[in-house]
């Protein structure tokens, strides 16, 4: 029974969180929009002036933008593909009767807890170094020429590092979902003579559809703004080969001090993220009804 008093109390309790988040959302965003319409360079102060959509035109027609948009899509797409496919396989494997499953689980999810700067540097040096890295040694064992990862295949290197960090997340969520699958349903299918493959295609996969969607959406939101891994390994290079949108905006803002253009870029990033967010919010929202 909600009395007037409890209603007032409820609103009061809600106010700080709502107020703070509102300010957090509105103020920086409004400033970003404002800066995006200015010619504003920190190296050249006191020359700010209104330029309308000039920054957007500059940012969107900059060849670096197209390159970084492409890199962003390649990075997000490849990591999604790798983590979801391997995640499904791994979740299926861990769902089998495995002795010491809890220990295997611990090993599998560990990379998720490693801070991005650590995983990037450990991979770059200890594993992927073209002379002294472990991969180079293994390649030589098989008589192959070691790959100079960060010169010859820098994007692939970043993709591998980021996938290693996110594979545990996909696996863990898909495994959780698998474990809630009704065993009897699978048994019934087997009794009816369904093979392992058709059980997987007709029973397991449909059951996983929703968690897979959730994994894809959440990973996309984080992957669109991968930053630290690029910052400590390639610095966006060689050339623009590993510059994604997040890194491009960072370098325009804090290396070239071009506030106007970086703000325009920031808004482009916000729009991209919102397209993904739109779908995620709908899925989660549907869940709230239940």
């Amino acid at each position, binding site marked *: 029974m909600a009395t007037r008093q409890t209603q007032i109390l409820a609103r009061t309790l809600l106010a700080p969180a709502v107020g703070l988040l509102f300010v957090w959302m509105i103020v920086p965003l409004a400033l970003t929009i404002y800066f995006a319409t200015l010619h504003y360079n920190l190296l050249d102060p006191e020359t700010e002036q209104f330029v309308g959509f000039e920054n957007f035109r500059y940012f969107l027609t900059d060849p670096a933008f197209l390159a970084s948009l492409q890199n962003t899509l390649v990075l997000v797409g490849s990591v999604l593909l790798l983590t979801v496919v391997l995640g499904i396989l791994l979740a299926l494997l861990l769902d089998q009767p495995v002795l010491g499953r809890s220990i295997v689980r611990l090993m599998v999810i560990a*990379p998720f807890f490693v801070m991005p*700067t650590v995983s990037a540097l450990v991979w770059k040096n200890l594993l992927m170094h073209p002379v002294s890295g472990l991969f180079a040694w293994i390649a030589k064992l098989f008589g192959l020429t070691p790959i100079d990862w960060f010169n010859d295949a820098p994007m692939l290197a970043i993709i591998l590092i980021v996938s290693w960090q996110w594979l545990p997340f996909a696996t863990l969520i898909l495994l959780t979902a698998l474990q809630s699958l009704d065993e009897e349903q699978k048994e019934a299918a087997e009794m009816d003579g369904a093979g392992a493959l058709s059980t997987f295609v007709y029973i397991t996969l449909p059951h996983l559809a929703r968690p897979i969607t959730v994994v894809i959406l959440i990973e996309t939101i984080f992957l669109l703004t991968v930053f*630290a891994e690029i910052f400590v390994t390639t610095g966006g290079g060689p050339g623009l080969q590993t510059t994604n949108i997040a890194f491009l905006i960072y370098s325009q803002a804090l290396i070239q001090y071009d*506030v106007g253009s970086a703000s325009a870029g920031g808004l482009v990033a*916000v729009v991209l993220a919102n397209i993904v967010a739109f779908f995620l919010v709908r899925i989660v929202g549907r869940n709230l009804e239940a």
Partner: protein
Amino acid sequence: MARIATNRQVVISTAAAWLVGFLIFFPILWMVLASFKTELEAFAIPPSFLFFHWTTENYATVQERSDYIHHALNSIIIAGGSTLIAMLIAIPAAWSMAFSPTKRTKDLLLWMLSTKMMPPVGVLVPIYLIWRDVGLLDSLTGLVFILCLGNLPIVVWMLFTYFKEIPRDILEAARMDGATIGRELIYVLTPMAIPGLASTMLLNLILAWNEAFWTLNLSTLNAAPLTVFIASYSSPEGLFWAKLSAASTLAIAPILVLGWFSQKQLVRGLTFGAVK
């Protein structure tokens, strides 16, 4: 009842699972091993796996040369501080939404979620300029504040889903017995909410500890937490693998342990309750 697996199947799936698990864990293991090697051995080809001269001197050097403890303390203050403040703001809000929901509660929750979708890079410029103008660059206060806001939506969401699960009959019963709201909070709600509160805090600590966008952009030395400290090893002239490994091991060990305890909550927290 689970299907009965033959011994053969168990052996095969166990072997496969352990192999894959080992491969995924290997980079971390390799890093920990390297942290106990001398610089020469860490760099050596062919690499030595276990039979090297074990030494702990890297750990001592890391502290001496680059003041590891200073950065570890920063990490603790930033992660702990932002988590505590976020909890203090989120608990009343989640409590209110779970126990006296209105028509707009759902929209409010979804709106909070949507603030989390905003890419940090979209607001990097204004935040950086504001921070510069009010002197918050490279300050612990500035980082605590921004990580707290960044994680607030997740905290509210997680707490909300936990509070939702507390049976409301119990509250009604307490009210019938004449309990005031204050007593209801302390004696009925709190004990039932503690597990949810604990797991929310845990997940938030992990996220804040590993946060590497704002920390890299808004701190340089004084307020630099471990994420930034480790990034300083990326400069090409300072390739000290054993020391990098020792510093990294120290940086991830506490959170790895916490993380292992919070696997279940992780799924729930990071999917906003969409997968339980």
